[in-house]
Every structure is written in structure tokens, then in C-alpha cells.
């Protein structure tokens, strides 16, 4: 590194070559300056300045440079300035300026005697030619010199500002010349200001490197530095262009070879500084890029790194919008990016950008959203309970990424890499694609798991999350990947949809496979009914989605000729004549809504399954109660959910209610017609007389039958309170008036006292009370 300065300082010389060959080990150190070396470097720098310092006086000593060790490097300068001075003595102020400047840091140096001597020899040889050339170029130099002529307070070091102006001027002229194509045949004049400029930039660089100045602390200083970097880039570009343009020509002209060498060394010198500066910027860029992530790391890990890394940034008190860069940082990043891109370091810049963002994004997914990747294979083996917990996290991650994070990344790329909009877009595209596809893989892997009824709802949640993003994708993603991202998302969505349809259709199987032969005690609601109805009620909360999924899927089914026809009628026979009408309307519905059709099918299967189960009861009355219980449960559930009611329709519900009334009637007939016959006056009036034995028999039979009914049917279960009371009321209305009138009419025929007590065990009120104990599911002891 120490050589840097010498390289450019003496860049117009072959001298650098000798220095280099004499001191190759130093070269090895290259870009990365160790702090320890910096001090040394400074010495060298000042050394160089010293030489420059003495330069003016050297003019006379030119002929015998060997005596003046260490001054040789300046020859080059002289060479340059010589002609100028010869022609017009305008160079003077500048020289002075240079002379004065370094005195502050004057330090002594002794090395490189040998080398210097050699250099000087060479220099001497080439000098005349140099001069010739310079003369040829007077026109150009004149301009430059004039600008440098601006009065400068003597005894002040050349300010960066001033030198920068010179450089700008130089660049401008070059530019103008280029525009006019004037310099085609001219060789390049390398103004002295370049050398000083490079020196000053390096000095600044050293300050940054040694932490004397920190990046981001003084915006103005950074800005000045970046401007310098930009000048370096422009110089570099110019010299490369120049080199290219003059290469052949110079090869032809032998005498110009030296100039070529001179230019080469200048290019090398600028290149070295440029690389050093760019390397520094790259590192700063990286640190800035990682800022949000580092802050975040600190949060997670206790404040172990806080001290240095975030010192320059005020702790974020307010929550900064994703991705967590302050305005200031973004400006900073964008400035650095601009400088790097201008210098042809776009690849480095983008590389750092891409890697930082990819890691930051994935880290944030993990730390902020709690999202962990799970392999597809593992998903298949995980128990549902664990998987179930992962799904809301996934949905949240998906939504957050697609609604906030991706747009945030898009903005970030666009503002940081504003100079190269296309690259910014493509980097964002690569990032979002790399995040999106693994996320979708999780959806695919969930869709692949073993089907189970309880999974339906989570699958539909995921389906909806995917579906809702697809329409936004045109805005969300760059054109090049929109269709791919849409296709990927749609594919995952379809897999989930298919799985949902299959799961829903599995309800059929779960009904069909429910073939238990043990009747539910007391004719209560069958667990299957409860399960199916609750399931359907939940499913119908997703009604619209299910409708959509079924429509999608039936399309796929139609396209896929190899699969079985899912909606074909196999076991779907009408149960009773009433159904015929309904079947027709079902058919119509099926056309417009495969989901409704599937739901209908499930209901019909459930009905026929329940009918089969009803037959398991030995008592017809109990099977009626069973059917009423289940029927009522179903109707209540359907009426309780607007969505499912919509699907099933009013007609269907009315039909169910009619069916229920039929069961009710059947029950009454089954249970109570016999007992009512005991209370009939028929056969009790034998020519106006009441035959007492028959009467006694009637009372005995009634009592026995009623007790039996009470005993068994109070064990029966009607859990729906309304149905229970309806039943009791209807029984009471049937039995009480009949009993009351029977009592009123015939109790007088029994002897009061023991006989009455023996045969009239129940008053009408007692009967009513006993009726109210029916369908409780509890054994009621007889009084």
C-alpha cells in the first residue's frame, strides 16, 4: 500500500517499475490496509510531499539529480511543468501552493536511494521527447493552465476543493474534446492536479480507515468523498478510453512508447486508489445494508454488539416501516451505490445488495414472523396437531410477505439502486421468487398430507390466503416473473383446492362407513348426525370458497378423463315419493353449484344412514323418536346457519318439517292409540248400565299401560327442549282430556274408598305430571 502514492506520484515515470521490482513484498499487501501500516503510509505520503515541496528549487538541479536522492520522483512533475513554464510562467502560483501544503507533516525519509538513481537516468533520457510533445499540445494545456491560474493565497496547502475544481475542469475539457473528436491525434496531457488529487483522496481514505472519521457521521464530508470517488471513476474511464483509442497508434509510433508507459502508470495509480476506495465503499455499503438486521440481532441476543455497530445510528425509537432502513440510511446507500456503479463496480454493489437482502429477509421471516422451514418429507410425518400450529404462522407469513415485505423490498431496491432501474427490478425479482417458491412448497406439502376431515378448514384458510394474492401479483412482481409467480401460486392453490374437495367428499365415506349396529340409547341424536352437522355448519362458513373450489375442481375433473366421475349417481335413490320433485330441483342446482349438490348428497346419505339406524330399534315408537331427534337436530343446525340454509333452500327445510310431523304422528299412534282405547266409553254402556268388571279392567289396563309407558319413555331422550315440550304438550292434549272425561264419567261407578283408590290411581294432574317426565332420559321411580 505504501506504494500507492508513489505509483501515482511518480506515475509519469518508469520509476515506479523499479520501485516495484525492488520492493515486491509491499505490493502484496494490496487493497486492504492494515491499521498498523497506516502510520507508515503517512510517512511515505509526506515523503512524497516533501519531494514536491522541494520541487521548485529543483529546477536548477535538474542536471545532477543523483546528488539529490529522494527528489527524483519530482522530475516527472518538472517535466510536466517545465514546458508550461517555458511558454508562460503561469504555473508559478500552483507550484507555490504545492510547495507550501505539505510542510505541516514534513517527515524525513531515507529509503530508495538506489532506485531513485536509476529512475532519474531513465527520466533524463526521455525528457526531451516529452517536451516536444508537450509543445505540440500547447493549445490544450493552455486552457488547463489558465484555470489553474486562479489566485491562490500563497502558503496554504492545496485544498481538496481547489484541486477538485481543477480536476473537474480537466474532465470537462476532455469531455468537450471528446465531443468534438479533437483529441484523436493528440496525446494526453496529465495535469499535475491529478497527482495531488489522488494524494488528497488517499489521505481522506486513511482517515476513514483509521476510524478518525466515520462513515455516516458527517454527511457533508461523505458527500465530498463521494464526489471525489466520482472524479476518480471519471478519470479512470477517461484514461481507459484514451488508452484504447491510442493503443494502436502508439504502437506504430515508436517514439511515443514512453508516453504510453507514462499513461499506463497513471492509469495504474488511479486504478489502485479506485480499488481501495471501492473496496471501502463496498464494506460501508454492506454494513449499512445489514443495519436493520444487526439491530434486530441485538434485540434477540442481548446487546452484545451494540456498542460499535449502531453507534452511528440513533436507536430506532419509532418503528420504521419494513425493511427497517431510515431515510438517511437509504440516501446513504443510494449514494454509495451510485458511486460504485459509476466506477464500474455495479456487480460488487449488486452482489452485496442481493446477499444482504436475501439473508435479512429470511432472518426476519424467522425472527419476526416466527416462520420456520419444514421439509416436505417432514410435513408428511408430522402429527396434525403440530402441523396445525404451523399453518396460522405460515398464513401470517404469506400475508405479511405479499402485502408489506415484498412491496417494501421493491421500494428499497428502486431507491437504493435507482441508477440501474432494470437491475434493481431484477434483483427484487430474484429475491421475491426465492422467497415465494419455498413458501408455496409448504402449501404444496400440506396439500399432500394424508386426508382427514379436520384438515379441511385449515386447508381452506391457506387456499384463501393464496387466492387473495393472485390478483395483486401484476403489481407485486416484475413483469418477467409475474406469470411464473402466478402459475406457481395457482398451482399450489389448486393442490389445496383439490385436497379440500377430496376431504369434503370423504364425508360420504365417513357416513357410509358408519355401520355400527348398536342403537343409541333412548333414541337420542346419533353422534354421526352431530359430527356431520357440525362439520357442515363449519364448512358452510367457507361456503363461497368451497363453491369456488368445487367449481374449479369439477373443471379439472372434466379435463382429466382418467379420473372417476365424481358426481355420478350411484346410491342416490329417492327414499320416498316426495323426493322425486326435489331430485329434479337438485339436478338443476347441481349444474350451477357442484358444492350444493355435494352437500345435498351428504344430507341424503345421512338420512338414509339414519333410517337404517332407526330400524335397529325394536320399538317403532322409539325409532320415531330417534328420527325426530335427529331430524330436529339437523333442521335446527341448518336454520341456525344462514349459509347452509341458503344452500339447502327453504323447500328442503319445509319438507324436513313435514317429515318430522309424520314421525310425530306415527309416534302418537304407536304409543298412545292403545292406551286411548282404554279410555273410550265404547263397550262400557251396556244398555245404560256400566259393567263394573269391565270398568275395573279398563282402569287396570290404563294404569298398567301408562306406568309402562312412563317407565320406558321417561328413559327415552329428547334433548331439544322445544321438541320435548311439543311432544309432551301433544301427548297431554291427547291423553288428559280423554282421561279427565273418562274419570268424570265413570269414577262414580266405583265404590268410594278402597275400590276407588285401587282403580283410580292417578288424577288427571298426576297423569300430566307423569307425561312431563317423559323423554328426560332419567329413570323415574314410580310413586
Amino acid at each position, binding site marked *: 500500500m505504501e506504494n500507492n502514492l508513489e505509483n501515482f506520484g511518480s506515475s509519469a515515470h518508469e520509476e515506479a517499475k523499479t520501485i*516495484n521490482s525492488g520492493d*515486491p513484498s509491499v505490493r*502484496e499487501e*494490496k487493497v486492504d*490496509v492494515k491499521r498498523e501500516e497506516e502510520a507508515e503510509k503517512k510517512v511515505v505520503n509526506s515523503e512524497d510531499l516533501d519531494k514536491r515541496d522541494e520541487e521548485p528549487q529543483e529546477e536548477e538541479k535538474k542536471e545532477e539529480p543523483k546528488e539529490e536522492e529522494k527528489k527524483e520522483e519530482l522530475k516527472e512533475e518538472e517535466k510536466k511543468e517545465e514546458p508550461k513554464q517555458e511558454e508562460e510562467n503561469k504555473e508559478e502560483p500552483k507550484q507555490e501552493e504545492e510547495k507550501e501544503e505539505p510542510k505541516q507533516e514534513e517527515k524525513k525519509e531515507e529509503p530508495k536511494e538506489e532506485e531513485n538513481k536509476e529512475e532519474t537516468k531513465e527520466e533524463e533520457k526521455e525528457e526531451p521527447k516529452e517536451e516536444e510533445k508537450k509543445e505540440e499540445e500547447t493549445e490544450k494545456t493552455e486552457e488547463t493552465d489558465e484555470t489553474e491560474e486562479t489566485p491562490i493565497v500563497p502558503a496554504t496547502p492545496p485544498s481538496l476543493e481547489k484541486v477538485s475544481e481543477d480536476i473537474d475542469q480537466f474532465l470537462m475539457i476532455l469531455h468537450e474534446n471528446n465531443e468534438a473528436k479533437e483529441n484523436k491525434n493528440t496525446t494526453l496531457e496529465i495535469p499535475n492536479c491529478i497527482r495531488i488529487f489522488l494524494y488528497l483522496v488517499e489521505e481522506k481514505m486513511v482517515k476513514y*480507515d483509521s476510524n478518525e472519521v466515520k462513515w455516516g457521521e458527517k454527511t457533508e464530508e461523505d458527500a465530498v468523498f463521494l464526489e471525489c470517488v466520482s472524479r476518480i471513476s471519471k478519470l479512470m474511464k477517461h484514461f*481507459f478510453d484514451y*488508452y*484504447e483509442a491510442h493503443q494502436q497508434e502508439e504502437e506504430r509510433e515508436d517514439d511515443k512508447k514512453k508516453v504510453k508507459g507514462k499513461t*499506463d*502508470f497513471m492509469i*495504474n495509480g488511479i*486504478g*489502485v*486508489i479506485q*480499488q481501495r476506495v471501492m*473496496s471501502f465503499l463496498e*464494506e460501508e455499503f*454492506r454494513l449499512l445494508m*445489514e443495519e436493520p438486521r444487526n439491530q434486530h440481532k441485538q434485540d434477540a441476543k442481548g446487546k452484545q*454488539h451494540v456498542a*460499535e455497530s449502531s453507534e452511528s445510528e440513533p436507536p430506532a425509537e419509532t418503528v420504521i416501516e419494513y425493511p427497517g432502513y431510515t431515510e438517511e440510511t437509504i440516501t446513504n446507500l443510494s449514494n454509495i451505490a451510485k458511486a460504485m456503479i459509476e466506477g*464500474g463496480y455495479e*456487480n*460488487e454493489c449488486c*452482489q452485496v445488495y*442481493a446477499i444482504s437482502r*436475501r*439473508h435479512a429477509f*429470511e432472518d426476519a421471516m*424467522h425472527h419476526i414472523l416466527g416462520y*420456520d*422451514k*419444514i*421439509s*416436505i*418429507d*417432514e410435513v*408428511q410425518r408430522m402429527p396434525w396437531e403440530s402441523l396445525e400450529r404451523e399453518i396460522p404462522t405460515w398464513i401470517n407469513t404469506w400475508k405479511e410477505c405479499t402485502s408489506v415485505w415484498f412491496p417494501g423490498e421493491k421500494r428499497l431496491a428502486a431507491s437504493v439502486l435507482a441508477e440501474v432501474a432494470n437491475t434493481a427490478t431484477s434483483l427484487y425479482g430474484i429475491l421475491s421468487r426465492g422467497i415465494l*417458491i*419455498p413458501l408455496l412448497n409448504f402449501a404444496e*406439502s400440506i396439500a*399432500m398430507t*394424508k386426508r*382427514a376431515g379436520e384438515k379441511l378448514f385449515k386447508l381452506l384458510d391457506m387456499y384463501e390466503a393464496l387466492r387473495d394474492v393472485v390478483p395483486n401479483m401484476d403489481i407485486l412482481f416484475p413483469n418477467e416473473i409475474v406469470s*411464473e409467480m402466478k*402459475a*406457481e401460486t*395457482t*398451482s399450489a392453490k*389448486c*393442490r389445496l383446492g383439490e385436497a379440500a374437495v377430496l376431504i369434503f367428499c*370423504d364425508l360420504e365415506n365417513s357416513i357410509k362407513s358408519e355401520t355400527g349396529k348398536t342403537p343409541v340409547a333412548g333414541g337420542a341424536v346419533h353422534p354421526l348426525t352431530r359430527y356431520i352437522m357440525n362439520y357442515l355448519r363449519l364448512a358452510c362458513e367457507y361456503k363461497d370458497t368451497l363453491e369456488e373450489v368445487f367449481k374449479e375442481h369439477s373443471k*379439472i375433473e372434466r*379435463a*382429466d*378423463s*382418467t*379420473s*372417476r366421475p365424481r358426481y355420478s349417481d350411484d346410491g342416490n335413490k329417492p327414499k320416498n315419493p316426495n323426493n322425486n320433485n326435489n331430485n329434479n330441483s337438485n339436478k338443476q342446482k347441481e349444474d350451477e353449484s357442484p358444492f350444493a349438490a355435494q352437500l345435498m348428497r351428504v344430507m341424503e346419505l345421512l338420512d338414509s344412514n339414519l333410517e337404517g339406524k332407526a330400524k335397529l330399534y325394536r320399538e317403532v315408537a322409539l325409532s320415531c323418536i330417534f328420527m325426530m331427534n335427529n331430524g330436529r337436530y339437523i333442521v335446527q343446525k341448518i336454520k341456525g346457519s344462514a349459509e347452509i340454509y341458503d344452500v339447502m333452500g327453504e323447500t328442503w327445510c319445509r319438507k324436513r318439517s313435514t317429515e318430522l310431523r309424520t314421525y310425530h304422528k306415527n309416534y302418537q299412534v304407536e304409543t298412545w292409540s292403545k292406551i286411548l282405547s282404554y279410555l273410550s266409553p265404547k263397550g262400557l254402556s251396556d244398555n245404560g248400565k256400566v259393567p263394573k268388571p269391565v270398568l275395573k279392567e279398563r282402569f287396570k289396563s290404563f294404569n298398567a299401560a301408562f306406568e309402562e309407558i312412563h317407565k320406558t319413555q321417561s328413559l327415552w331422550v329428547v334433548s331439544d327442549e322445544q321438541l320435548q315440550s311439543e311432544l309432551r304438550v301433544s301427548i297431554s292434549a291427547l291423553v288428559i282430556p280423554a282421561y279427565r272425561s273418562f274419570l268424570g264419567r265413570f269414577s262414580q261407578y266405583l265404590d268410594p274408598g278402597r275400590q276407588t283408590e285401587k282403580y283410580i290411581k292417578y288424577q288427571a294432574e298426576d297423569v300430566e305430571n307423569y307425561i312431563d317426565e317423559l323423554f328426560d332420559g332419567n329413570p323415574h321411580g314410580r310413586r
Partner: protein
Amino acid sequence: MPATTENNQGSFLGRISIRRNQVLSMDGSHEQEIEDLELFQKHVGDRFSELLSSTTSDDSSGDALLSIAWLRRLLDELLCCEAEFKAVVLMGRDPSQIAKPPLDKVLPEFLDRVVKSLDVCNAVTLGLDAVRNLQRLAEIVVTALDVAPLGDGQVRRAKKALSALVAAMLHEDNVGTKGTERTRSFGRRAGNNNKTTAPIRSLSSTMARNWSAAKQIHSMMSNLAAPRGAESSGLAQPIYIMSTVLVFIMWTLIAAIPCQERNGFGTHFPLPRQFTWAQPMIALQEKIAEEWKKKEKKGNVGLLEEMHRMEKLAQSLIEFADSFQFPAETDRLDEVKKQVAELGEICKKMDQGLEPLQQQIREVFHRVVRSRTEFLVVLDQAGKLSTPTV
């Protein structure tokens, strides 16, 4: 973009259904079946011997073993085999045939392998991202060195990228195991001026934690045994062939492309020597295993041909950079120019090939998912399994 299979499906099914009708119209369907099986075996053998011969042919028309172009051909073969396999085993078949022994065991095992192969596809996709990272580093090298006059600055720039490149080649592979902790760079600001040790970090996204390519391929290989006796003439045979093809291709991908956790990646691959169709696969497997063993010792990011060449060039360019002095010697410079040009050529190949390769892997992913579903539907129909296994 081949992502959705629906479209592909259409044309594919079209082909199949014609075939199915033919099968159904044949009376001697058993003979037809045997013929189909033989044809399938023959095609598999033919496809792989083509792949093999392209690596041995001396002329430049062939694709080098494990080059991007070769891997793309390999994946093409997978897609073809898969389509034909489905035609032979699945299409137009009475579901009950598929559900009876030994298929009731062999088929779920196959489907299990299919699921595992999906993870390999995803890991390889991530690995290709890492390869692209290498490509970008190499591009920096090319940009830096492809200038005249070549100065110290450019050489240093190239050296930096080269070091990162070589380091990434060594470590890309192991990042998964180290978790998310990556080189932090507080160093310099904290006072130790160690910029030199902060390389461009590698770009490795990980699969799930603890996921291991080596374990995955190992479990795909387990229970992979050729059907014996009477079974060998039935449908168990094509299922076995397809399993072998699938496992072989996944094994090759893992060997070629950076993958999370390859410790214990076995080079031994039990391929059936008694079958003609397996011969070219065996030859390929031996070649790849040999390559693997050669590189295993010194840390290996993958056998991808382009990467391999890139590494050699990088090593040589690092040597050049280390000894570089301005101005450069013309002889050395010419040599470097050639190497830089070759590196640029590789970058170009990667630039053109990696993305299509990635998309092809994605296509394999979707295709394989799709056929798995189709198999499950048929198994469902067979009623032997009321719910899908796996």
C-alpha cells in the same frame, strides 16, 4: 414457465387416452402389457445409454458429464420416463390391479420416494442459487481482468472476488449445518482492522433445519430391491425401474450441485447388474462416484462441470494475482487473457443454463406431485386404502 401442470397435462392426457383406447380394444391385453413393459425397459436403457455416450464422445458436440447441459438432458429423461411409466402402470388400468399385492406395498413405497425427491428438487434449486452467486463473483473477476492496461487496482479487485469465489466453493456446502450465523463484520468498526477477512458472504439459503441431502438420498435408497420370481414380470417391475431412475437422478443432482449437508453422501449405489436397462446407469454411476471420490478429500461444493472448471481457473488466476506486478509481462498476460476468456465463457454458459435448469427442476417437481395425486386417486378407487398412505 412450466409451473402449472394443467396445460402440460392436457396434451399429455391426450396422448395417453389414445393409447388407453388401444389397450382396451385389445383382447390379448396381457400380451400387450408384457410388450409394454418390455418397451418401457428398453426405452429406459436407451435413454441412459445416450446420456452415457454423450459424455464419452470425444467430439465437442457431446455434453460433458455433469455439465449444465448434460443435467438438463438428464432431467428431460426423467420427465420422459415418468410419462411413459404412468402410461404403462396407471392409465386405463382397473384400479383393483394396482391395489393387489405386491403393488399394495411397492406402490406406496414408490410414492414415498416421490415425496422425498421433492425435497431434493427444492434443495437443488437453492443450490443453483448458490451457483449463480459463484457465477456473479466470476463475472466480477472477468470484468476486473478484462481491461487494458491491467493495473494493480484491477488485479486486487479480481483477487478479492477470486478469494470469495474459492471460499464460497469450499463453504457453500456446509452453511446449512452452521445455521444462520454468518460472518459478522463489526470487526473493523470495533477497532480490529480486519477488512481482509470479511469476504463477500456466500449466498446459501437453507432448507429446513437439520435437513440433510445425504440422509434424504439414503432413505430413498432403502428398500429398493428388484422384484423376484413371479413379481418380476408384473407391474412391480416398472415401479422398480421408475424408482431406480428417480433415485439415480436425485443422487446425481445432489452430487453435482451444492446441497445442504452432504456428509455421509454415499457413492455406493445398489444398482441391479442383472438387467440390461440398468447397464448405462451403472456406468454413469461409477464415473460420477469416481469423480466424487477424487474431490471428496479437499472439500467439494459439487461436481458440476462448469463449477469444477471455474475452480481450476480461479486457482490459477489467484496465483497470477499473487505474483502480479505492474506493468504485467506480456507472456503472462496473454495466458491470463485466455483464462479470463474461458472464465467468461463459463459465466455465459451459467447465465444461459442455470435458469432453465432451475425451471426444469421445478417442472419435475410439479409433474411428480401431479402423478402422485393421480396414483392416490386410483388407489382410493381401489378402495383398499380409504385414505392415502404416505
